[in-house]
């Protein structure tokens, strides 16, 4: 048992925090909420120069060869800073799917250009029919036509499709609409004919899109992973994405707690610092409990997943706890920040809105508990 971070990991965390403090102040976060693109290409380039995009890719593909835990520490800092932009879509949803399912030439073509910051990717996965999160509910059809496939259908909640160079689309090539079998993944150029996106207005003001595929023709060479067998890779990516989201949530929740504790040490009412009141102290203590728990279970689940030990229950438990934790920390934060925290211009609102988006991404606590229930024999 060892909870130590290595010196490299500590340095990574510190340099990320410093960089984001300078480059990603809350004014920038707010500006990007209103910006059509939602990120700054100059900053994107700087992040790439720091090696962030390729931190968890093998060196052979232009990466740094760090492990998944290093990557999660970085995401924790991004969650803390509310970093806007397509990092998560590009690296987690795009890069990790390529690593998981791609053949050698696909990896060689895409991963180095992701690492260098030249390519933005995303995953077109959920659909209008996904009224409850379900990784295998795929109805968008891909039909073979000669050496091509024709994709027809609609995807929803596709993050950053508006700026992506390439979308990985999960399509049904066989089987029932919710079966894990019969799913195939395709690399689709965003300039393809028949592909249209539209930005959705979301609580976190992140850039999630509806993407319509109208007879989009994709070469059979752009099939990612086995025909009909994309479900497995998708499942693995969903696990990594859930844990990456957990790390972001831990970082965000930590910021909320730090902010509230700082406020409670300064704000006076009835002639006393509000931090001396037990009610406020207990709110803060509860935040600490939620956050510490979320942090350790995320690390443990990631450690387990990366060693290919059975990790289904732990990953689900981490996302279940983390989703609930961030939501509750945000609610407690609002209670401590009170009226001022309810104002649109206050930082608190950035976090409570993101807590909701993160909670429902890749399965909320209700969904994850169904998986846990199955794992414990129910």
């Amino acid at each position, binding site marked *: *048992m*060892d*909870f*130590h*971070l290595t010196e490299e990991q500590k340095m990574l965390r510190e340099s990320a925090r410093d960089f984001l403090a300078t480059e990603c102040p809350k004014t920038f976060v707010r500006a990007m909420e209103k910006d059509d693109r939602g990120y700054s290409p100059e900053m994107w380039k700087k992040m790439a120069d720091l090696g962030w995009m390729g931190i968890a890719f093998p060196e052979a593909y232009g990466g740094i060869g760090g492990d998944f*835990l290093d990557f999660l520490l970085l995401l924790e800092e991004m969650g803390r800073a509310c970093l806007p932009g397509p990092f998560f879509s590009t690296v987690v949803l795009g890069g990790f799917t390529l690593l998981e399912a791609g053949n050698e030439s696909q990896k060689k073509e895409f991963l180095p250009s992701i690492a260098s910051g030249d390519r933005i990717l995303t995953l077109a996965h959920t659909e209008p029919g996904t009224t409850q999160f379900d990784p295998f509910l795929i109805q968008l059809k891909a039909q073979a036509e000669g050496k091509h496939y024709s994709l027809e259908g609609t995807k929803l909640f596709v993050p950053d499709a508006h700026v992506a160079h390439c979308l990985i689309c999960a399509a049904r090539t066989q089987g029932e609409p919710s079966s894990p079998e019969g799913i195939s993944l395709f690399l689709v150029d965003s300039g393809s004919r028949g592909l249209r996106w539209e930005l959705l207005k979301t609580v976190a003001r992140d850039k999630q899109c509806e993407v319509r595929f109208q007879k989009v023709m994709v070469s059979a060479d752009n099939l990612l992973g086995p025909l009909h067998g994309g479900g497995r890779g998708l499942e693995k990516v969903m696990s990594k994405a859930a844990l990456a989201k957990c790390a972001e949530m831990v970082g965000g929740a930590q910021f909320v*707690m730090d902010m509230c*504790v700082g406020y*409670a*040490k300064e704000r006076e009412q009835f002639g*006393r*610092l509000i*931090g*001396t*009141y*037990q009610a*406020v*102290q*207990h709110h*803060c*203590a*509860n935040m*600490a*409990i939620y956050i*510490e*728990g979320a942090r*350790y*279970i995320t*690390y*443990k689940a990631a*450690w*387990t997943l990366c060693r290919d030990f059975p990790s289904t*229950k*732990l990953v689900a*438990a981490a996302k*279940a*706890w983390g989703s609930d934790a961030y939501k509750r920390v945000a609610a407690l934060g609002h209670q401590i920040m009170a009226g001022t925290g309810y104002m649109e211009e206050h930082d608190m609102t950035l976090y409570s809105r993101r807590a909701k988006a993160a909670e429902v991404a890749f399965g909320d606590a*209700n969904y*994850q*508990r*169904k998986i*846990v*229930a199955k*794992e*414990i*024999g*129910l």
Partner: protein
Amino acid sequence: MDFGHTKEEEEFKKRLTAFLDRELTEEIARQNWEDKGVGPEAREFSRKLAANGFLGMSWPKEYGGQGLSPTYDFILLDEMGKRWGAHVPLDVGYTMVGHTILRRGSEELKRDFLPRIIRGEIEFCLGYTEPNAGSDLASMRMRAVEEGDFYVINGQKTFNTEAHYSEYHWLAARTDFTPNTPKHRGISLFIVDMNSPGIAVRPLWTMSGERTNEVFYENVSVPKSRLVGEKNKGFYYMMEAIDSERNHVFTPCRLTPLLEDLIQYARETRYNGRPLAEDPKIKDQLAQMAVELEVAQLFAEHSRWMESHEIPMTYEPEITKVFISELDQRLVDVGMGILNLYSQLEEGSKWAPLRGRVEWYFLHSFMTTIGAGTSEIGRNVIAQRGLGLPRA
């Protein structure tokens, strides 16, 4: 970061589980856990545990230990807990008092007591709480006055569980009576033979049927050699010991058997022809308990790791304590809900499900957020010591 065990630790665990599967019974587990009084079977088990080298792994060799990492003791606590919530039979000495003797006791006290603790031969009971000193422990009034080579002690303690079968009282008493001395600066710790003349033990019975005690002192003479560490430093020793005590006493694995019993029950019990395990609400509730048990285990492992590496702890063990004790109550509530009408049936009653164990846990659960410090005080500690919030 590493969430696994070393090869040696795995080896130890294998030997240990084989031993426990053979030697530990539900009766022995419950004798200690339910404070029924550690009987001859549990005493015998305690000696066997020691004889097989499972006690004292992490204690210094010079006092009969094996000088290894505290991890081994935590493996022992976890593996015992998984079996009917068992604890080391003579656990107050082993998991609490012994560590303070090692840290603060004179060489004479160490040589006298530590080997016997490690051999599983003696037990202590804590003598802290008084009728007017609960959460505000430092306001205790029990008096210890120096007379020649002795302290003469008078006063009353309450809720001293284990007092009726322990050999020794780990007693906190006031030794500085000068006015205006801050109350926590005038307390000392003593080791008192429970058969000293002038000690009277009276039972108090809890709502879940465990025995705890009131202990009365009338002119009890205690040799000065039984003062632990320095005079008037007792309260500091108690506070510095709390973190390690939390780590050793609040073992999440002890809730595992209850969760497993409930899962089994939900699978085997039918309503309207279908197993309860198919009810979405029951599934969700039990899954949440499984999630929380994972989290609890990580809280414990994190603060144990800090202790093992001598990293200063502030609020980590307190989080473990608050969380596990409240999880105990949530789990019991889920369990009683699943058992529904049958949840009322006590052990020994006709029709009692799961041997009436859930009903007992229910009664017992009212104590978990109070004993060893209330959840409210625990949250004050987390907020003040951990997060640096100001005191009132």
